[in-house]
């Protein structure tokens, strides 16, 4: 079965997946699997699934708008703000224009800012988790982000990122933080604007340290076998095929996603290559069986909404979220 990588721990801990630790060497490229994906498949030292593919985020931008506003591709967060301000100066009179379109609930795009300043969602010592989203570093990252959003974004502060590609295709947005495959949605002939394709470029989310990139969340899928499956051998064969060199290469060249092994990353070209490069500096969500419950309870999304809509100060919102995260992660299921 294909599982979202943030959900694997929940199912592995509850006995749903077969333990394939002993068979790891059977799988092609297992020596060069992407580290984050492999981590997502490992629970209590045992391997429960095989990495399938990954996606990472970078900033998709309108080259023509940048040229017209005199902005250059930023290499630091300060540069990003400057470029955005130039865009707002040029196009801001349009009430629908956003230099950087950032929907309030877009947690995966906010995470790089938290991680870049050394913050994190939660830390683990022994078997105890402690929410860390209210640490000084995390708060600093969120403060920088809030400044960017207030100045550069007119997106719905309580909305999510599901319609951002369609919105981008309407032509009133200069930058969005997006996955590589979203280029396809933006230029889709039916729901998007195919004429935008030559005008699109991408660059990794810059770090606050000039010249570096911010760590991004490595989303992706893993392939697992149901513990109760009566055809474990067949299932393993299937996973071997999907995770092997032949199909992984196709997924890179045709599908534009990031493969499960670093040895094939070089196959991607054009815009997808930028996303693949960004994936080299990637982080993952707390690998706890209860992490899925944090996602379901919308803790981080609600926190961001409270911050962006000024319903709570950053310190209050992060403290509330951190306490909830601690409670949920440490709950016995």
């Amino acid at each position: 079965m294909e599982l979202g990588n943030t959900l694997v721990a929940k199912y592995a801990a509850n006995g749903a997946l077969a333990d394939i630790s002993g068979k790891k060497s059977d799988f092609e490229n297992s020596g060069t699997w992407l580290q984050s994906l492999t981590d997502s498949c490992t629970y209590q030292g045992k391997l429960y699934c095989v990495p399938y593919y990954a996606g990472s985020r970078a900033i998709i931008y309108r080259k023509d708008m940048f040229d017209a506003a005199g902005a250059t591709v930023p290499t630091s967060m300060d540069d990003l703000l400057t470029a955005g301000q130039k865009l707002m100066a040029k196009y801001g009179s349009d009430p629908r224009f956003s230099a950087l379109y950032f929907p309030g609930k877009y947690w995966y795009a906010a995470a790089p800012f938290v991680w870049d300043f050394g913050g994190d969602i939660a830390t683990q010592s022994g078997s105890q988790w402690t929410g860390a989203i209210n640490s000084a570093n995390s708060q600093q990252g969120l403060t920088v982000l809030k400044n960017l959003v207030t100045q550069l974004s007119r997106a719905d502060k309580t909305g999510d990122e599901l319609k951002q590609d369609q919105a981008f295709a309407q032509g009133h947005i200069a930058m969005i933080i997006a996955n590589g495959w979203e280029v396809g949605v933006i230029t889709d002939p039916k729901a998007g604007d195919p004429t935008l394709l030559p005008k699109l470029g991408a660059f990794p989310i810059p770090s606050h340290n000039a010249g570096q990139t911010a760590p991004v969340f490595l989303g992706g899928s893993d392939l697992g076998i149901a513990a109760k499956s009566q055809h474990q051998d067949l299932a393993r064969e299937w996973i071997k095929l999907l995770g092997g060199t032949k199909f992984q290469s196709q997924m890179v060249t045709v599908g534009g996603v990031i493969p499960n092994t670093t040895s094939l990353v070089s196959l991607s070209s054009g815009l997808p290559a930028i996303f693949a490069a960004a994936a080299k500096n990637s982080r993952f969500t707390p690998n706890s069986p209860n992490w899925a419950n944090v996602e379901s309870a919308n803790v981080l999304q609600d926190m961001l909404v409270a911050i962006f809509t000024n319903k709570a100060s950053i310190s209050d919102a992060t403290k509330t979220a951190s306490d909830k995260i601690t409670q949920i992660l440490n709950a016995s299921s």
Partner: protein
Amino acid sequence: MRAAGSIASTARPRSRGEASSLRSLVARKGLPYALIAPATVVILGVLGWPLLDLLYLSTQHYGLRELFQHQGRFVGLQNFATILSDPQFKYVVEVTVIFTAVNVALSMTLATIIALLMERVSSFVRVLLGAGLVFVWATPVIPAIDLWQWMFDYEFGVINWLLTRIGAGNYIHHNWFENPVQGFTVITIVVVWGAIPFLALTLHAGLTQVPKELVEAAQIDGARALQIFTNVTLPTLKPLVLVLLSLSTIWDFQVFNQVWVMLNQRPGESYFVMSVFSFQESFRVSQYGLGSAVAVIMVALLILLSFFYVRQTVRSINEAGA
């Protein structure tokens, strides 16, 4: 009949007349029960079994692990204690009660007005109105909610555009769901819109039963329209209104789709009505035992609420019939 009579007379030393009337008495009394027996069995099976299962599940600790092992852990009334002592639950009940009250009041009032209107207009307009109501009623729920969602959309919604155009203020990029009061107002519009057709058409049918002679007599006596309504129409409609009120209450108490779909399946905590809260506990957090406990409490509350309606309905039917 003849054969029955002779069997009876050979079996017992009774007069033939008495025995056959006993048999036909039993047949008369027993026949209704025999006729509804199949339907009752099916209803008990289809509705009763899941209800019993729900009650059983609410006494269990049933998370993901238990799901995969097909075995829950009995915890007695622990789930109920957890739910009832949760401050969030108090908020959920409050929100649900207020939401239900507002929706029922609005639906019934508007439906009554429309039903009265349908009585008075020309038959051509009546047919148009009726057709319009039926179209609304026939629209499948999810696409309908989707349409309303697009109308109130932050980025592309036509309501925002329209309100700005007619000068009601600057509604460009107005988010209707940022403030729960505004959000619930939108959800109420959608719920009431969907509820009116059934209520209006049923009330319209009920209005045709109001005796015309009484209305004319009242008019001759000089009664104004409102007095006629309160003293003649409403009392005649009372059983029907009570039934509709109880149905309305039960349905609006259970509203789930409108809240869930309009908020993109991720409603904020301030939007948790009871059904959403139960769903969230069961399927999002995977605590099926807790979710079931919430559902059981919901059923209990609804039984309590509708008890009074049903008693009133039965009373007024008995008054009218006897």
